[in-house]
Protein backbone atom coordinates (compact mmCIF):
# COMPACT_ATOMS: atom_id res chain seq x y z
CA UNK A 1 0.00 0.00 0.00
CA UNK A 2 1.36 3.37 -0.96
CA UNK A 3 1.87 5.83 1.81
CA UNK A 4 1.99 9.24 0.29
CA UNK A 5 0.77 11.86 2.61
CA UNK A 6 -1.04 13.99 0.12
CA UNK A 7 -1.39 17.23 1.92
CA UNK A 8 -3.15 20.19 0.49
CA UNK A 9 -1.14 23.39 0.58
CA UNK A 10 -0.84 24.07 4.26
CA UNK A 11 0.12 27.28 5.86
CA UNK A 12 3.63 27.86 7.13
CA UNK A 13 4.09 28.08 10.84
CA UNK A 14 4.93 31.75 10.67
CA UNK A 15 3.70 34.34 8.28
CA UNK A 16 3.20 38.03 8.42
CA UNK A 17 -0.24 39.00 9.55
CA UNK A 18 -2.58 40.84 7.23
CA UNK A 19 -2.63 44.48 8.22
CA UNK A 20 -5.62 45.49 10.31
CA UNK A 21 -8.31 47.53 8.55
CA UNK A 22 -7.78 51.30 8.44
CA UNK A 23 -8.75 53.00 11.66
CA UNK A 24 -11.25 55.80 11.28
CA UNK A 25 -10.30 59.02 13.02
CA UNK A 26 -13.65 58.99 14.81
CA UNK A 27 -13.32 55.55 16.36
CA UNK A 28 -11.08 56.89 19.07
CA UNK A 29 -8.64 54.11 18.24
CA UNK A 30 -6.10 56.49 16.74
CA UNK A 31 -5.69 58.01 20.17
CA UNK A 32 -4.98 54.58 21.63
CA UNK A 33 -2.42 53.37 19.16
CA UNK A 34 0.04 52.41 21.82
CA UNK A 35 -2.57 50.44 23.74
CA UNK A 36 -4.61 47.51 22.55
CA UNK A 37 -7.72 48.33 20.52
CA UNK A 38 -10.79 46.29 21.43
CA UNK A 39 -12.21 44.31 18.53
CA UNK A 40 -15.71 42.96 18.08
CA UNK A 41 -14.47 39.41 18.52
CA UNK A 42 -13.49 40.29 22.08
CA UNK A 43 -9.78 40.22 21.45
CA UNK A 44 -7.52 43.21 21.56
CA UNK A 45 -5.86 44.33 18.38
CA UNK A 46 -2.17 44.97 18.88
CA UNK A 47 -0.44 47.99 17.42
CA UNK A 48 0.75 47.79 13.83
CA UNK A 49 4.40 47.25 14.64
CA UNK A 50 3.71 43.72 16.01
CA UNK A 51 3.76 42.35 12.45
CA UNK A 52 5.19 38.82 12.51
CA UNK A 53 2.81 36.41 14.22
CA UNK A 54 2.30 32.69 14.42
CA UNK A 55 -0.65 31.43 12.41
CA UNK A 56 -2.36 28.14 13.00
CA UNK A 57 -2.01 25.63 10.22
CA UNK A 58 -4.08 22.75 8.89
CA UNK A 59 -2.16 19.75 10.23
CA UNK A 60 -1.63 17.04 7.60
CA UNK A 61 -3.51 13.81 8.16
CA UNK A 62 -1.49 11.03 9.81
CA UNK A 63 -2.36 8.76 6.86
CA UNK A 64 -3.05 9.14 3.16
CA UNK A 65 -6.48 10.00 1.85
CA UNK A 66 -7.38 6.52 0.66
CA UNK A 67 -5.90 4.56 3.57
CA UNK A 68 -9.17 4.38 5.49
CA UNK A 69 -11.17 2.93 2.60
CA UNK A 70 -13.75 1.49 2.46
CA UNK A 71 -14.74 2.59 5.97
CA UNK A 72 -14.11 6.26 5.27
CA UNK A 73 -13.63 7.04 1.61
CA UNK A 74 -11.09 9.30 -0.02
CA UNK A 75 -13.88 11.62 -1.13
CA UNK A 76 -15.10 12.05 2.44
CA UNK A 77 -11.58 12.80 3.68
CA UNK A 78 -10.95 15.27 0.88
CA UNK A 79 -14.09 17.17 1.77
CA UNK A 80 -14.02 16.71 5.53
CA UNK A 81 -10.34 17.48 6.10
CA UNK A 82 -9.63 19.50 2.97
CA UNK A 83 -12.93 21.42 3.00
CA UNK A 84 -14.55 21.68 6.42
CA UNK A 85 -11.49 21.44 8.66
CA UNK A 86 -9.44 23.71 6.42
CA UNK A 87 -12.20 26.34 6.35
CA UNK A 88 -12.22 26.49 10.15
CA UNK A 89 -8.45 27.02 10.21
CA UNK A 90 -8.72 29.86 7.69
CA UNK A 91 -11.66 31.52 9.45
CA UNK A 92 -9.95 31.21 12.83
CA UNK A 93 -6.76 32.78 11.56
CA UNK A 94 -8.71 35.64 10.03
CA UNK A 95 -10.62 36.28 13.24
CA UNK A 96 -7.65 36.26 15.58
CA UNK A 97 -5.10 37.99 13.34
CA UNK A 98 -3.66 41.00 15.08
CA UNK A 99 -5.57 40.35 18.31
CA UNK A 100 -4.10 39.23 21.61
CA UNK A 101 -5.23 35.66 20.87
CA UNK A 102 -2.84 35.60 17.92
CA UNK A 103 0.14 33.37 18.65
CA UNK A 104 -1.57 31.60 21.53
CA UNK A 105 -1.99 27.84 21.65
CA UNK A 106 -5.17 26.36 20.22
CA UNK A 107 -6.48 25.16 23.56
CA UNK A 108 -5.97 28.59 25.09
CA UNK A 109 -7.81 30.23 22.21
CA UNK A 110 -10.62 27.71 22.53
CA UNK A 111 -11.10 28.32 26.25
CA UNK A 112 -10.76 32.10 25.91
CA UNK A 113 -13.30 32.34 23.10
CA UNK A 114 -15.72 30.02 24.90
CA UNK A 115 -15.97 32.97 27.22
CA UNK A 116 -17.57 30.98 30.06
CA UNK A 117 -20.63 29.96 28.04
CA UNK A 118 -21.09 33.13 26.03
CA UNK A 119 -19.00 32.13 23.04
CA UNK A 120 -17.33 34.65 20.80
CA UNK A 121 -17.45 34.24 17.00
CA UNK A 122 -14.02 32.61 16.91
CA UNK A 123 -15.04 29.84 19.30
CA UNK A 124 -16.74 27.58 16.80
CA UNK A 125 -13.68 27.70 14.54
CA UNK A 126 -11.15 27.20 17.33
CA UNK A 127 -13.15 24.32 18.77
CA UNK A 128 -13.74 22.67 15.41
CA UNK A 129 -10.04 22.91 14.52
CA UNK A 130 -9.21 21.25 17.84
CA UNK A 131 -11.98 18.67 17.49
CA UNK A 132 -10.98 17.67 13.99
CA UNK A 133 -7.27 17.42 14.82
CA UNK A 134 -8.27 15.18 17.72
CA UNK A 135 -10.61 13.13 15.53
CA UNK A 136 -8.06 12.43 12.78
CA UNK A 137 -5.55 11.29 15.37
CA UNK A 138 -8.11 9.01 16.99
CA UNK A 139 -8.35 6.77 13.93
CA UNK A 140 -5.96 4.80 11.75
CA UNK A 141 -5.99 2.24 8.95
CA UNK A 142 -6.73 -1.26 10.33
CA UNK A 143 -7.98 0.19 13.58
CA UNK A 144 -10.48 -1.35 15.96
CA UNK A 145 -9.89 -4.35 18.16
CA UNK A 146 -9.63 -4.04 21.92
CA UNK A 147 -7.78 -1.77 24.27
CA UNK A 148 -5.49 -3.26 26.91
CA UNK A 149 -3.66 -2.30 30.07
CA UNK A 150 -4.81 0.58 32.21
CA UNK A 151 -7.41 1.75 29.68
CA UNK A 152 -9.14 -1.64 29.61
CA UNK A 153 -8.89 -1.83 33.40
CA UNK A 154 -10.67 1.51 33.82
CA UNK A 155 -13.24 0.68 31.13
CA UNK A 156 -14.16 -2.51 32.97
CA UNK A 157 -14.18 -0.71 36.31
CA UNK A 158 -16.34 2.20 35.19
CA UNK A 159 -18.64 0.55 32.64
CA UNK A 160 -18.65 -3.10 33.65
CA UNK A 161 -17.35 -4.28 30.32
CA UNK A 162 -15.84 -3.08 27.06
CA UNK A 163 -19.04 -3.93 25.21
CA UNK A 164 -21.12 -1.85 27.62
CA UNK A 165 -18.83 1.12 27.14
CA UNK A 166 -19.11 0.77 23.36
CA UNK A 167 -22.89 0.54 23.66
CA UNK A 168 -22.96 3.74 25.71
CA UNK A 169 -20.66 5.45 23.25
CA UNK A 170 -22.78 4.44 20.27
CA UNK A 171 -25.97 5.49 22.05
CA UNK A 172 -24.51 8.91 22.79
CA UNK A 173 -23.46 9.25 19.16
CA UNK A 174 -26.84 8.38 17.68
CA UNK A 175 -28.86 10.37 20.20
CA UNK A 176 -26.85 13.57 19.73
CA UNK A 177 -29.62 15.38 17.91
CA UNK A 178 -28.45 17.59 15.08
CA UNK A 179 -24.75 18.19 14.72
CA UNK A 180 -22.17 17.36 17.34
CA UNK A 181 -19.74 14.85 18.79
CA UNK A 182 -19.68 11.86 21.10
CA UNK A 183 -16.78 11.41 23.51
CA UNK A 184 -15.00 9.07 25.83
CA UNK A 185 -13.34 11.26 28.44
CA UNK A 186 -11.44 11.05 31.70
CA UNK A 187 -13.10 13.07 34.40
CA UNK A 188 -10.68 14.07 37.13
CA UNK A 189 -11.77 17.51 38.09
CA UNK A 190 -13.27 18.84 41.25
CA UNK A 191 -16.08 21.32 41.23
CA UNK A 192 -14.85 24.77 42.02
CA UNK A 193 -16.97 25.13 45.15
CA UNK A 194 -15.01 26.93 47.81
CA UNK A 195 -15.72 24.98 50.96
CA UNK A 196 -16.67 21.60 49.51
CA UNK A 197 -13.92 19.25 50.55
CA UNK A 198 -13.73 15.58 49.74
CA UNK A 199 -12.70 14.06 53.06
CA UNK A 200 -11.23 10.96 51.49
CA UNK A 201 -9.92 11.88 48.09
CA UNK A 202 -8.75 8.92 46.11
CA UNK A 203 -7.91 7.98 42.58
CA UNK A 204 -11.26 6.21 42.43
CA UNK A 205 -13.05 9.57 42.24
CA UNK A 206 -11.60 9.95 38.80
CA UNK A 207 -13.47 8.05 36.17
CA UNK A 208 -14.10 7.44 32.50
CA UNK A 209 -17.29 8.93 31.13
CA UNK A 210 -19.13 8.83 27.83
CA UNK A 211 -20.77 12.06 26.78
CA UNK A 212 -22.13 13.91 23.80
CA UNK A 213 -21.93 17.56 22.83
CA UNK A 214 -23.71 19.78 20.28
CA UNK A 215 -22.10 21.51 17.32
CA UNK A 216 -18.55 22.55 18.26
CA UNK A 217 -18.64 22.10 22.02
CA UNK A 218 -16.00 19.78 23.47
CA UNK A 219 -15.35 18.50 27.01
CA UNK A 220 -12.31 20.74 27.55
CA UNK A 221 -14.75 23.44 28.56
CA UNK A 222 -15.90 21.25 31.44
CA UNK A 223 -12.29 20.56 32.32
CA UNK A 224 -12.51 16.91 31.32
CA UNK A 225 -9.69 15.18 29.44
CA UNK A 226 -11.03 13.89 26.11
CA UNK A 227 -9.74 10.46 25.13
CA UNK A 228 -11.77 9.60 22.01
CA UNK A 229 -14.18 11.45 19.77
CA UNK A 230 -16.49 10.61 16.90
CA UNK A 231 -17.77 13.38 14.64
CA UNK A 232 -21.52 13.01 14.13
CA UNK A 233 -22.08 16.07 12.02
CA UNK A 234 -23.75 14.72 8.88
CA UNK A 235 -20.78 15.74 6.73
CA UNK A 236 -18.68 13.16 8.60
CA UNK A 237 -20.66 10.21 7.22
CA UNK A 238 -23.24 11.27 4.67
CA UNK A 239 -21.30 10.47 1.49
CA UNK A 240 -20.39 7.00 2.77
CA UNK A 241 -23.41 6.02 4.86
CA UNK A 242 -26.17 8.47 3.89
CA UNK A 243 -28.49 8.83 6.88
CA UNK A 244 -27.22 5.67 8.59
CA UNK A 245 -25.31 7.28 11.43
CA UNK A 246 -25.49 4.14 13.56
CA UNK A 247 -23.72 2.13 10.86
CA UNK A 248 -21.00 4.77 10.64
CA UNK A 249 -20.42 4.74 14.38
CA UNK A 250 -20.28 0.92 14.44
CA UNK A 251 -17.67 0.89 11.70
CA UNK A 252 -15.81 3.66 13.51
CA UNK A 253 -15.40 1.62 16.69
CA UNK A 254 -14.87 -1.72 14.95
CA UNK A 255 -12.52 -0.73 12.14
CA UNK A 256 -11.03 2.70 12.71
CA UNK A 257 -10.37 3.57 16.36
CA UNK A 258 -6.75 3.57 17.45
CA UNK A 259 -6.88 2.27 21.03
CA UNK A 260 -3.14 2.92 21.35
CA UNK A 261 -3.76 6.63 20.94
CA UNK A 262 -6.64 6.50 23.43
CA UNK A 263 -4.41 4.67 25.95
CA UNK A 264 -1.69 7.22 25.46
CA UNK A 265 -4.12 10.06 26.07
CA UNK A 266 -5.37 8.34 29.22
CA UNK A 267 -1.82 8.02 30.52
CA UNK A 268 -1.23 11.73 30.04
CA UNK A 269 -4.60 12.63 31.55
CA UNK A 270 -3.93 10.52 34.65
CA UNK A 271 -0.48 12.03 35.09
CA UNK A 272 -1.90 15.52 34.80
CA UNK A 273 -4.65 14.70 37.28
CA UNK A 274 -2.14 13.28 39.75
CA UNK A 275 0.07 16.34 39.36
CA UNK A 276 -2.91 18.61 39.94
CA UNK A 277 -3.91 16.63 43.02
CA UNK A 278 -0.34 16.85 44.39
CA UNK A 279 -0.31 20.60 43.82
CA UNK A 280 -3.65 21.01 45.55
CA UNK A 281 -2.54 18.94 48.55
CA UNK A 282 0.58 21.11 48.81
CA UNK A 283 -1.58 24.24 48.70
CA UNK A 284 -3.95 22.83 51.29
CA UNK A 285 -1.01 21.94 53.53
CA UNK A 286 0.39 25.44 53.18
CA UNK A 287 -2.99 26.87 54.08
CA UNK A 288 -3.19 24.57 57.12
CA UNK A 289 0.18 25.77 58.29
CA UNK A 290 -0.71 29.45 58.07
CA UNK A 291 -4.02 28.80 59.80
CA UNK A 292 -2.42 27.06 62.76
CA UNK A 293 0.06 29.90 63.12
CA UNK A 294 -2.85 32.27 63.44
CA UNK A 295 -4.47 30.10 66.11
CA UNK A 296 -1.28 30.01 68.10
CA UNK A 297 -0.93 33.76 67.90
CA UNK A 298 -4.43 34.14 69.29
CA UNK A 299 -3.63 31.88 72.26
CA UNK A 300 -0.48 33.81 72.97
CA UNK A 301 -2.35 37.08 73.14
CA UNK A 302 -1.54 38.54 76.58
CA UNK A 303 -4.70 40.59 76.88
CA UNK A 304 -6.86 37.48 76.56
CA UNK A 305 -8.94 36.51 79.57
CA UNK A 306 -7.38 33.32 80.86
CA UNK A 307 -7.38 31.35 84.08
CA UNK A 308 -3.95 32.63 85.05
CA UNK A 309 -4.61 35.63 87.22
Amino acid at each position, binding site marked *: MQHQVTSFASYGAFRTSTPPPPISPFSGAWRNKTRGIKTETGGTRLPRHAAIVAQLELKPLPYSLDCLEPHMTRQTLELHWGGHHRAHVVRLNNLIAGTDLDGKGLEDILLATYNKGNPLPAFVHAAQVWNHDFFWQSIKPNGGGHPSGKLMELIERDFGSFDTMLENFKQAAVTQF*GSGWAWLAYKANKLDVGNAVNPCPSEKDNRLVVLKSP*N*AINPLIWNYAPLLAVDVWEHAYYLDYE*NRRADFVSVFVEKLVSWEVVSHRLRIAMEQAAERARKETREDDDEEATRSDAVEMYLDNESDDSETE
Partner: protein
Amino acid sequence: MAFRTLLAKKTLALASSFAPVSASGDRWLGASLHRVRTLTVASLPDLPYDYGALEPIISGEIMKIHHQKHHQTYITNYNNALEKLDAAIAKGDASAVVQLQSAIKFNGGGHVNHTIFWQNLKPTNEGGGEPPHSTLGWAIDTNFGSLEALIQKMNAEGAALQGSGWVWLALDKGSKKLSVETTANQDPLVTKGATLVPLLGIDVWEHAYYLQYKNVRPDYLKSVWKVINWKYASEVYDKETA
Protein backbone atom coordinates in the same frame (compact mmCIF):
# COMPACT_ATOMS: atom_id res chain seq x y z
CA MET B 1 -48.89 1.66 1.08
CA ALA B 2 -52.42 2.39 -0.06
CA PHE B 3 -53.37 3.55 3.42
CA ARG B 4 -50.67 6.16 3.39
CA THR B 5 -51.68 7.68 0.11
CA LEU B 6 -55.34 7.93 1.08
CA LEU B 7 -55.05 9.16 4.61
CA ALA B 8 -52.99 11.99 6.02
CA LYS B 9 -53.29 10.52 9.48
CA LYS B 10 -54.38 7.25 10.87
CA THR B 11 -55.77 6.43 14.26
CA LEU B 12 -54.34 3.84 16.56
CA ALA B 13 -57.88 2.55 17.12
CA LEU B 14 -58.12 1.64 13.43
CA ALA B 15 -54.88 -0.32 13.54
CA SER B 16 -55.94 -2.07 16.70
CA SER B 17 -59.07 -3.51 15.13
CA PHE B 18 -56.78 -6.22 13.82
CA ALA B 19 -55.36 -6.96 17.26
CA PRO B 20 -56.61 -9.96 19.26
CA VAL B 21 -58.99 -9.34 22.16
CA SER B 22 -58.30 -10.65 25.64
CA ALA B 23 -60.81 -12.18 28.02
CA SER B 24 -61.46 -8.86 29.75
CA GLY B 25 -62.29 -7.17 26.46
CA ASP B 26 -59.08 -5.19 26.28
CA ARG B 27 -57.04 -5.31 23.12
CA TRP B 28 -53.42 -6.42 22.96
CA LEU B 29 -51.33 -3.85 21.22
CA GLY B 30 -47.75 -4.80 20.80
CA ALA B 31 -46.13 -5.74 24.09
CA SER B 32 -48.60 -3.88 26.31
CA LEU B 33 -52.21 -4.42 27.07
CA HIS B 34 -54.28 -1.30 27.27
CA ARG B 35 -57.72 -0.09 26.53
CA VAL B 36 -58.33 1.17 23.05
CA ARG B 37 -57.95 4.89 23.01
CA THR B 38 -58.03 7.12 19.97
CA LEU B 39 -54.52 8.40 19.47
CA THR B 40 -53.94 10.22 16.22
CA VAL B 41 -50.46 9.44 14.97
CA ALA B 42 -48.60 10.96 12.09
CA SER B 43 -47.82 9.42 8.76
CA LEU B 44 -45.60 10.35 5.86
CA PRO B 45 -47.31 12.71 3.40
CA ASP B 46 -46.68 11.98 -0.26
CA LEU B 47 -44.66 14.50 -2.22
CA PRO B 48 -46.78 16.50 -4.69
CA TYR B 49 -44.13 15.78 -7.37
CA ASP B 50 -41.72 13.02 -8.38
CA TYR B 51 -38.40 12.64 -6.61
CA GLY B 52 -36.55 13.70 -9.77
CA ALA B 53 -38.83 16.62 -10.60
CA LEU B 54 -36.65 19.23 -8.87
CA GLU B 55 -33.52 18.34 -10.86
CA PRO B 56 -31.02 19.79 -11.48
CA ILE B 57 -31.54 22.02 -8.43
CA ILE B 58 -32.08 19.22 -5.95
CA SER B 59 -31.20 15.72 -7.09
CA GLY B 60 -33.69 12.87 -7.05
CA GLU B 61 -31.30 10.93 -4.84
CA ILE B 62 -31.44 13.62 -2.16
CA MET B 63 -35.22 13.99 -2.38
CA LYS B 64 -35.75 10.25 -2.01
CA ILE B 65 -33.48 9.83 1.02
CA HIS B 66 -34.71 13.06 2.55
CA HIS B 67 -38.33 11.99 2.26
CA GLN B 68 -38.20 8.22 2.76
CA LYS B 69 -35.45 8.08 5.35
CA HIS B 70 -35.14 11.33 7.27
CA HIS B 71 -38.75 12.47 7.34
CA GLN B 72 -40.02 8.91 7.86
CA THR B 73 -37.61 8.45 10.79
CA TYR B 74 -38.88 11.62 12.46
CA ILE B 75 -42.42 10.32 12.06
CA THR B 76 -41.60 6.87 13.42
CA ASN B 77 -39.81 8.31 16.44
CA TYR B 78 -42.51 10.92 16.97
CA ASN B 79 -45.23 8.27 16.99
CA ASN B 80 -43.25 6.15 19.44
CA ALA B 81 -42.86 9.13 21.72
CA LEU B 82 -46.57 9.95 21.41
CA GLU B 83 -47.57 6.45 22.44
CA LYS B 84 -45.23 6.56 25.41
CA LEU B 85 -46.57 10.00 26.29
CA ASP B 86 -50.12 8.72 26.13
CA ALA B 87 -49.27 5.89 28.50
CA ALA B 88 -47.41 8.21 30.85
CA ILE B 89 -50.30 10.67 30.99
CA ALA B 90 -52.76 7.86 31.67
CA LYS B 91 -50.61 6.61 34.51
CA GLY B 92 -50.00 10.11 35.84
CA ASP B 93 -46.25 9.63 35.49
CA ALA B 94 -45.14 13.26 35.37
CA SER B 95 -41.49 12.36 35.35
CA ALA B 96 -41.91 10.27 32.21
CA VAL B 97 -44.03 12.99 30.61
CA VAL B 98 -41.26 15.53 31.12
CA GLN B 99 -38.57 13.16 29.97
CA LEU B 100 -40.34 12.59 26.65
CA GLN B 101 -40.46 16.28 25.77
CA SER B 102 -37.14 16.46 23.97
CA ALA B 103 -37.95 13.44 21.78
CA ILE B 104 -41.29 15.02 20.91
CA LYS B 105 -39.68 18.37 20.14
CA PHE B 106 -36.95 16.85 17.96
CA ASN B 107 -39.04 14.39 16.06
CA GLY B 108 -42.36 16.22 16.06
CA GLY B 109 -40.52 19.35 14.96
CA GLY B 110 -38.85 17.36 12.21
CA HIS B 111 -42.23 16.15 11.00
CA VAL B 112 -43.81 19.63 11.14
CA ASN B 113 -40.91 21.31 9.37
CA HIS B 114 -40.53 18.80 6.60
CA THR B 115 -44.27 18.69 5.89
CA ILE B 116 -44.07 22.44 5.22
CA PHE B 117 -40.83 22.07 3.26
CA TRP B 118 -42.30 19.68 0.68
CA GLN B 119 -44.99 22.30 -0.01
CA ASN B 120 -42.37 25.04 -0.25
CA LEU B 121 -40.75 23.33 -3.23
CA LYS B 122 -42.16 23.05 -6.74
CA PRO B 123 -40.72 21.90 -10.06
CA THR B 124 -39.81 24.82 -12.32
CA ASN B 125 -42.20 23.65 -15.01
CA GLU B 126 -45.04 23.85 -12.48
CA GLY B 127 -44.30 27.38 -11.28
CA GLY B 128 -41.34 26.79 -9.01
CA GLY B 129 -39.17 29.87 -8.79
CA GLU B 130 -41.82 32.27 -10.08
CA PRO B 131 -41.58 35.40 -7.94
CA PRO B 132 -44.50 36.40 -5.71
CA HIS B 133 -46.92 39.07 -6.87
CA SER B 134 -49.67 41.23 -5.41
CA THR B 135 -50.13 40.99 -1.65
CA LEU B 136 -47.07 38.98 -0.69
CA GLY B 137 -44.96 40.71 -3.32
CA TRP B 138 -45.83 44.14 -1.91
CA ALA B 139 -45.32 42.95 1.65
CA ILE B 140 -41.85 41.74 0.76
CA ASP B 141 -40.99 45.08 -0.84
CA THR B 142 -42.31 46.92 2.20
CA ASN B 143 -40.50 44.78 4.74
CA PHE B 144 -37.21 44.14 2.93
CA GLY B 145 -36.98 46.65 0.10
CA SER B 146 -37.03 44.08 -2.66
CA LEU B 147 -37.24 40.37 -3.33
CA GLU B 148 -33.48 40.32 -4.04
CA ALA B 149 -32.80 41.84 -0.64
CA LEU B 150 -34.95 39.22 1.05
CA ILE B 151 -33.22 36.39 -0.78
CA GLN B 152 -29.82 37.81 0.07
CA LYS B 153 -30.77 38.06 3.74
CA MET B 154 -32.11 34.51 3.89
CA ASN B 155 -29.04 33.19 2.12
CA ALA B 156 -26.70 35.05 4.47
CA GLU B 157 -28.51 33.83 7.59
CA GLY B 158 -28.80 30.31 6.23
CA ALA B 159 -25.11 30.16 5.42
CA ALA B 160 -24.11 31.55 8.81
CA LEU B 161 -26.22 29.10 10.79
CA GLN B 162 -23.90 26.92 12.87
CA GLY B 163 -24.63 23.23 12.79
CA SER B 164 -28.11 22.15 11.73
CA GLY B 165 -31.29 24.15 11.40
CA TRP B 166 -33.69 26.06 9.21
CA VAL B 167 -34.01 29.55 7.79
CA TRP B 168 -37.55 30.93 7.53
CA LEU B 169 -39.57 33.67 5.96
CA ALA B 170 -41.97 34.36 8.79
CA LEU B 171 -45.20 36.27 9.09
CA ASP B 172 -46.14 37.68 12.45
CA LYS B 173 -49.88 37.10 12.73
CA GLY B 174 -50.23 39.95 15.18
CA SER B 175 -48.25 42.76 13.57
CA LYS B 176 -48.61 41.42 9.99
CA LYS B 177 -44.87 42.04 9.60
CA LEU B 178 -42.55 39.75 7.67
CA SER B 179 -39.19 38.70 9.08
CA VAL B 180 -36.34 36.31 8.46
CA GLU B 181 -35.74 33.87 11.30
CA THR B 182 -33.51 30.90 11.92
CA THR B 183 -34.15 27.94 14.16
CA ALA B 184 -31.69 25.35 15.39
CA ASN B 185 -32.02 21.63 14.76
CA GLN B 186 -35.71 20.80 14.23
CA ASP B 187 -37.17 23.58 16.34
CA PRO B 188 -40.32 24.76 14.57
CA LEU B 189 -40.73 28.45 13.82
CA VAL B 190 -43.15 28.96 16.70
CA THR B 191 -40.25 28.49 19.10
CA LYS B 192 -39.04 31.89 17.92
CA GLY B 193 -42.42 33.54 18.55
CA ALA B 194 -45.88 32.20 19.28
CA THR B 195 -47.46 34.45 16.65
CA LEU B 196 -45.02 33.52 13.87
CA VAL B 197 -46.35 31.62 10.86
CA PRO B 198 -43.94 30.02 8.39
CA LEU B 199 -44.39 31.15 4.80
CA LEU B 200 -41.19 29.52 3.57
CA GLY B 201 -38.60 27.35 5.23
CA ILE B 202 -35.29 26.23 3.80
CA ASP B 203 -33.70 23.16 5.36
CA VAL B 204 -29.99 23.80 5.94
CA TRP B 205 -29.21 20.51 7.66
CA GLU B 206 -26.36 18.94 5.70
CA HIS B 207 -28.60 16.05 4.66
CA ALA B 208 -30.63 18.54 2.59
CA TYR B 209 -27.78 19.26 0.18
CA TYR B 210 -24.57 17.37 0.92
CA LEU B 211 -24.75 14.61 -1.68
CA GLN B 212 -25.00 17.24 -4.40
CA TYR B 213 -23.50 20.48 -3.14
CA LYS B 214 -21.01 18.90 -0.72
CA ASN B 215 -19.76 21.42 1.83
CA VAL B 216 -20.76 24.45 -0.26
CA ARG B 217 -23.99 25.40 1.49
CA PRO B 218 -24.02 28.89 -0.11
CA ASP B 219 -24.30 27.29 -3.59
CA TYR B 220 -27.32 25.27 -2.45
CA LEU B 221 -28.94 28.39 -1.02
CA LYS B 222 -28.31 30.35 -4.21
CA SER B 223 -29.84 27.63 -6.39
CA VAL B 224 -32.79 26.56 -4.29
CA TRP B 225 -34.76 29.72 -5.13
CA LYS B 226 -35.35 28.30 -8.61
CA VAL B 227 -37.68 25.71 -7.10
CA ILE B 228 -39.29 27.73 -4.33
CA ASN B 229 -43.07 27.64 -4.40
CA TRP B 230 -44.06 31.25 -3.88
CA LYS B 231 -47.68 30.40 -4.66
CA TYR B 232 -47.93 28.37 -1.45
CA ALA B 233 -46.30 31.19 0.52
CA SER B 234 -48.79 33.67 -0.96
CA GLU B 235 -51.73 31.47 -0.06
CA VAL B 236 -50.59 31.18 3.54
CA TYR B 237 -49.93 34.92 3.69
CA ASP B 238 -53.35 35.82 2.28
CA LYS B 239 -55.10 33.43 4.63
CA GLU B 240 -53.38 34.83 7.72
CA THR B 241 -53.80 38.47 6.75
CA ALA B 242 -57.42 38.18 5.62
